[in-house]
């Protein structure tokens, strides 16, 4: 394909901007996710920094054209670093009335609004529960509305291929894409490769039609007068290297592969499908040639239990779920903790409680994973902060699990799991090994092997079946330190409870200290965790740019906290903890450091916007008075 030249040249004016936020919305069947992914990849290849936010309905296929069926994909691409998909939209592309009315509020005044005017018929309005067309509303004056008869134009464009009406109609998302590509001067190559890769085999008519639609969309942009100029977003200056775009759940799966390779293990991955964690299963089950064994268990309890069995056998055992499934795993997590076996438990959080809002994001499982087990049962808990960070964090988690011999919980969330960002591809040959040893000789030559005799980190030996002379039995009853025999001895129990707590505390020794972004002391410290990293960082940097004395400490290690955290906190007059829950980290911080941390809590199934955080930071730093909010 020699389309390169053609596909980026325009005769109209080009306006260079530092960043663009655009949202593509339409019916679930309109292929918005595909469109968004292509725009993301193309922008990434163009060297922009990017962040994305896909948002789709809970229903598999909600009735066409209804508000419930609206699917959206937002992407911010910029010539500077971006950490969020953007608060408000520079442009909104809406494929039908339902999509328009449910998304318009986020478009900035004067923003570009592109609609498929062919889908604003009476029947479409009715499906969207509208009496009059929103295009006729006076509010439209606030936007740069461009009505495009996409359906008709696409039909005409692909007429030559003799497709059925339905097939022809399906091409209209590529038409829209072409228009968007023209608008932002995006290169169509990658998308053309995609089209021919996906529809290439035997169905090249479809591929060709889609290409035609794409090019027609581009041509349309170049042609119509309503669009006076296109935009240009320069490449961002990212660290050197080869990049790719990576989605959170994919990064999680790939991080597991890396952890396995670093530790010389094969993965046993046991799971029961649940939104938004299932994609990790879907991703991993492709990698059988990496020796990955995926097991779709009969339920979450079987999943975690089979993982425990595999861990006892010496495998790298992983189980994933979301909130409701994690609730089911808690009893067995307690067992793994007693058995002192390495295990990764990944919780991709979603809106709760109960079934809650399965497709929405939330940070409300922190307390569940920290405290949600019977008895004194502490576990290390790590939280990923972005899609690409999932790759790192599971490796850290596996390092901890094997060095300390215990289950480790990793938190992600729906926002991270489905979001994507550019990822500097690591040099695999430079990944440091994670050393695991399985003893082959008894640690107690004068008697029987002592499965609970510990090393300096308090880890017990990971002796595995098949090893002569090291036969031992483990179980959920309290056991004697050293021998591992059942023990009802009061002092031994107290000792073991302390040892298990200390083992978890020892994790802090294996992990880096807490970093602070911004002044090392001052007026306000923003403490954040998990998927809100991008929004918090952007808001804090914006406030800093305005001269505010504010710093960010983003916590990745939720339990134990980094050992320098308390000291850091003490250097600021105020502490703000923004969370997508009712104040879970805040409770932990207050209990631990007795600091009157203030919460900024949002629980709407949506990520923070930068501006709401910025407002809060401004409020706290401007007023000069410390806000005190009791946690209830």
């Amino acid at each position, binding site marked *: 394909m020699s389309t390169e030249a053609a596909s980026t040249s325009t005769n109209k004016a080009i306006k260079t901007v530092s960043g663009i936020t655009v949202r593509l919305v339409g019916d679930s069947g309109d292929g918005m996710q595909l469109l968004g992914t292509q725009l993301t990849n193309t922008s*990434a*290849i*163009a*060297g922009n920094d990017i962040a994305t936010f896909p948002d789709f309905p809970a229903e598999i296929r909600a009735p066409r054209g209804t508000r419930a069926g609206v699917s959206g994909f937002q992407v911010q691409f910029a010539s500077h670093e971006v950490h969020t998909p953007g608060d408000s939209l520079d442009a909104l592309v809406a494929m039908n009335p339902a999509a328009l009315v449910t998304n318009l509020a986020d478009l900035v005044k004067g923003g570009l609004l592109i609609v498929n005017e062919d889908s604003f018929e009476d029947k479409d309005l009715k499906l969207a529960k509208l009496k009059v067309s929103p295009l006729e509303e006076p509010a439209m004056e606030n936007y740069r509305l461009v009505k495009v008869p996409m359906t008709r134009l696409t039909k005409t464009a692909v007429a030559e291929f003799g497709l059925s009406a339905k097939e022809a109609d399906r091409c209209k998302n590529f038409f829209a894409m072409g228009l968007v590509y023209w608008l932002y001067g995006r290169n169509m190559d*990658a998308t053309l*490769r995609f089209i021919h890769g996906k529809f290439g085999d035997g169905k090249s008519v479809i591929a060709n039609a889609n290409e035609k639609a794409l090019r027609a969309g581009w041509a349309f942009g170049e042609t119509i007068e309503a669009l006076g100029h296109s935009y240009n977003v320069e*490449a961002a200056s*990212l*660290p*050197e*290297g*080869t*990049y*790719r*775009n990576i989605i959170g759940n994919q990064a999680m799966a*790939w991080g597991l*592969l*890396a952890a396995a390779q670093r530790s010389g293990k*094969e993965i046993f991955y046991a799971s029961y499908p649940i939104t938004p964690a299932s994609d990790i299963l879907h991703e991993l089950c492709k*990698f*059988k*040639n990496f*020796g*990955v*064994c995926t*097991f779709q*268990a*009969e*339920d979450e309890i*079987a999943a975690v*239990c*089979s*993982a*425990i*069995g*595999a*861990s*006892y*056998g*010496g*495998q790298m*055992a992983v189980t994933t779920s979301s909130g409701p499934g994690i609730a089911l795993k808690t*009893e067995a997590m307690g*067992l793994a903790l007693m058995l002192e076996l390495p295990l990764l438990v990944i919780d991709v959080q979603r809106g709760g409680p109960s079934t809650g809002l399965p497709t929405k994001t939330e940070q409300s499982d922190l307390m569940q994973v920290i405290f949600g087990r019977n008895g004194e049962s502490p576990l290390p808990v790590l939280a990923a902060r972005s899609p690409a960070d999932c790759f790192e964090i599971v490796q850290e988690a596996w390092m901890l699990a094997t060095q300390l011999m215990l289950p480790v919980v990793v938190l992600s969330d729906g926002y991270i799991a489905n979001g994507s960002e550019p990822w500097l*591809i690591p*040099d*695999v040959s430079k990944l440091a090994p994670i050393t695991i040893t399985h003893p082959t000789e008894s640690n107690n030559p004068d008697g029987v092997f002592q499965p609970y005799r510990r090393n300096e980190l308090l880890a017990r030996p990971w002796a595995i*079946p*098949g090893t002569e*002379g*090291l*036969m*031992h*039995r*483990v*179980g*959920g*009853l309290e056991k004697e330190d050293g021998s591992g*025999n*059942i023990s009802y001895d009061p002092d031994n129990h107290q000792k073991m409870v302390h040892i298990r707590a200390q083992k978890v505390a020892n994790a802090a020794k294996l992990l880096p200290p807490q970093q602070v972004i911004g002044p090392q002391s001052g007026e306000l410290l923003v403490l954040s965790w998990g998927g809100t990293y991008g929004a918090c960082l952007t808001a804090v940097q914006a406030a800093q740019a305005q001269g505010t004395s504010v710093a960010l400490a983003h916590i990745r290690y939720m339990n134990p906290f980094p050992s320098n955290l308390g000291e850091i906190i003490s250097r600021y007059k105020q502490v703000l903890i923004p969370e997508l829950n009712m104040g879970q980290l805040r409770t932990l911080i207050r209990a631990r450091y007795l600091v009157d941390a203030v919460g900024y809590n949002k629980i709407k199934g949506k990520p923070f916007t930068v501006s709401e955080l910025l407002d809060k930071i401004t409020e706290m730093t401007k007023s000069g008075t410390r806000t005190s909010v009791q946690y209830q």
Partner: protein
Amino acid sequence: MSTTLPVLKADDFTSDQDIRWCPGCGDYSILAQMKKVLPEIGVPPEKTVFVSGIGCSSRFPYYVNTYGVHSIHGRAPAIATGLKMTRPDLSVWVITGDGDALSIGGNHFIHLLRRNVDLNIILFNNRIYGLTKGQYSPTSVEGQITKSTPMGVVDHPLNPISVAVGAEATFIARSVDSNVKHLAYTLKRAAAHKGTSFVEVYQNCNVFNDGAFSYAQDKATRDDTTIELEHGKPMIYGKDKDRGIRLNGLNLEVVDLNDGKVKEDDLLFHDEKANSTLVYMLSRMRRPDFPEPIGVFRDVLSETYEDAVRGQIDQAIEQRGRGNLQKLFNSGETWKVGV
């Protein structure tokens, strides 16, 4: 291998732990027979793993000097599945009780059976919750008075073997704690079967449900109340071997062999390889109308789960080559910055 292996004895499988069952408990006998047959099976202790749930019976792993996991209530099948899928080289046994396997663990139990993971489940059926001191279990009989049923059980009991047939188990057997020879033989057969072997053992809990199986235990009655299944043999039982089982349409009937009217050839011949209908019918033979079958109900071959799973892994490696991480990371659309 031509090197002579050391000959193992029951003692090699005896752990250093004190046994904590009530004196007279049927569990002792099952333990003894297990320790007796383990050397004969020939898998060394370090290659053997016992996985159990919670219950009196589930204390079993502590008493055998192999690897073992005394897990949580009802979950042993799931733990054992994960272990065997990743370590097909091990010989894995699941030890469970009627509550553990059929009440809280019922789902894992049927899914293990349907998957046909190559391991052996020994279900100690005492028709009671022993460890929690005497509540009824899913195999308790209707009317049974227990701590939680002062007016008698009203739940219709589950028949473990019928459930196993429903889940399409490939090996199904039953034995009795005190019938030591039969028990030893049955355990060996279970070990020999490739796929999930399910053995129900009638076990006396002399504290909370004493005598529940005395009919099948007592030398005086057992020949009349049980029938030993033998592959290819006609179904004959009774102290004097004078009664048989005959098929009549889709019903079984007890026939008298004394008067010579019914000949051996008219009887039902046991067939371990038969379709599962026969096994289902045998599972329905219950006292007092029928003698209760003991022995191997079914033993058929089918691909094991771990073979199928690992087969796909091998095939993937063969077809696509051993996975290369760097290649994977660099696949699809990538771009370079500043290099």
